[in-house]
Structure formats: structure tokens, C-alpha cells
């Protein structure tokens, strides 16, 4: 069987309406378009084998992409060139940050959980008023990793993000 690489990234945008475009088809098309522009027909075809959007979280902007091990470099180099997401005839500017590249979904999930925890703490520190502070503290305290043996457990982000 062919090795795969899982690339964990986050979509950031100054426009809050961009969140509604964070869906697998729109993100997949935007990434493939960037690969096509940057690496041409050859690069696009290379990366498209086994390319798919494995997981998305529109609230946090986390996206997990999968590709062949031989072409993950083409994919990663093209991610900074994604400039907008388009969905239902709406397009909004955005940028993609690469967070982690792993060989399995599990390693990416572990990283994402730790990353989300750190982000929550950072948000807590950046709180400007008591109200937000209390809200976030409540969320953090109610977070717990439940050891569920469900099939889809692998792809779920176990931290309680609203």
C-alpha cells in the first residue's frame, strides 16, 4: 500500500464571513487550484492521486488534508498560495498556515488537541473583559478527554471547542 502524508493546517481570514466557505469541496478546490498554478499540470496530477480533505472544523479553521508521501512537498509549498475560498458564488480572501505534517491521522489529531489547548490558554490571556474570561475559563475547566472506543473517534477533536 502507498504511504500517505496528512497535512494539518488552519485557514485564517480577516473576514468573518469566510467561515461559511470552510467546507471540504471549497477548500479542496482552492488547494488544487493553487497546486495547479504553482506546479502546473504535472504537479496537479501528481498531488491529486489520493488527495482528499479528511477533516475540517469551520469554527477553528482547522483542516486536515491527505496526499501521497511522494508529493506532499508539492502540496505544502502550494498552501501559502491559496488566497481565497469560494463557495455558492461567494468568495472571501483568506490564508492558510501549515501546522503539522504527519504520517497518520492519529499523530495529527494529537497535535491538534495540544494546539487547541494552547490556543485556548492564549485566548484566555488576551481576554479584554471579565465576561469573556469567565466564559473561557468555564470551557477550559469542562474540557476532558473521554476515552470513547467509537469508530469515528479518531477524527474528532476531543477538546470542547464551541
Amino acid at each position, binding site marked *: 500500500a502507498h504511504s500517505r502524508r496528512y497535512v494539518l493546517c488552519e485557514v485564517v481570514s480577516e473576514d468573518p464571513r469566510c467561515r461559511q466557505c470552510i467546507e471540504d469541496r471549497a477548500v479542496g478546490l482552492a488547494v488544487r487550484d493553487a*497546486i*495547479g*498554478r*504553482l*506546479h*502546473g*499540470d*504535472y*504537479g496537479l496530477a501528481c498531488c491529486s492521486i489520493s488527495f482528499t480533505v479528511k477533516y475540517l472544523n469551520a469554527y477553528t479553521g482547522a483542516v486536515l488534508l491527505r496526499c501521497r508521501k511522494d508529493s506532499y512537498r508539492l502540496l505544502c509549498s502550494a498552501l501559502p498560495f491559496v488566497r481565497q475560498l469560494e463557495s455558492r458564488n461567494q468568495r472571501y480572501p483568506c490564508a492558510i498556515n501549515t501546522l503539522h505534517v504527519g504520517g497518520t491521522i492519529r499523530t495529527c489529531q494529537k497535535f491538534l488537541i495540544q494546539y487547541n489547548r494552547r490556543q485556548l490558554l492564549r485566548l484566555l490571556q488576551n481576554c479584554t473583559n471579565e465576561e469573556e474570561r469567565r466564559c473561557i475559563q468555564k470551557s477550559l475547566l469542562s474540557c476532558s478527554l473521554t476515552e470513547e472506543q467509537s469508530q469515528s473517534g479518531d477524527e474528532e477533536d476531543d477538546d470542547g471547542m464551541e
Partner: protein
Amino acid sequence: ELPDGGARPSAAQFKQLVVSALRELHGEVGAALPVDVLTYEEKTLSAILRVISSGLVKLWSALTLLGFYQNRRCAFRVLQTSPFLLALSGNSREIVLD
């Protein structure tokens, strides 16, 4: 090779054609590959191109797959490649030494 008897590309248009072939097959990264047209003969439509050796595969594959120049059918034939320019001046098997 341009089988139809139309206008022949100038040196600049030839370079543009090579770069656009690279851009189609290998994208912006391919188009940014430094390729030099060392000589170009409009009459015979033959040229000597220079590229860094790590870029040979990209250049050759891009030229091979280029099928059109201004909507006219065309084809690139690579006659010879060599790391040395002098080697391209003649067929070393037919050298006559006097």
C-alpha cells in the same frame, strides 16, 4: 517543427514559447527555471538552449508535450543534449581528421 507555412517565431517569441511550455506543465515554478536561448536560427527553427542540469527533465518534458504555437500545430524535437557546448557543434562520429 512548424508544418504549416505560417510566420516563424522570432527569438523572443521562441523564448516565450519555451517558458510558456514550462508554465503549462510545471507551473510558476517551472516558468521560473532559468533557461537561456544561446542560439536561434529562424530559417531552420533550430536553437541551442541552456538549462541547469537539475532542470533538464522539466525542460525536456515540457518541450515534448507542447503541441501548439499560436493555435498552430507544432512539435519540438530534441536532437542532442550535452553538458558541453562544443559537443553540439557536430556529430563526433563523423569527424574527419586530416
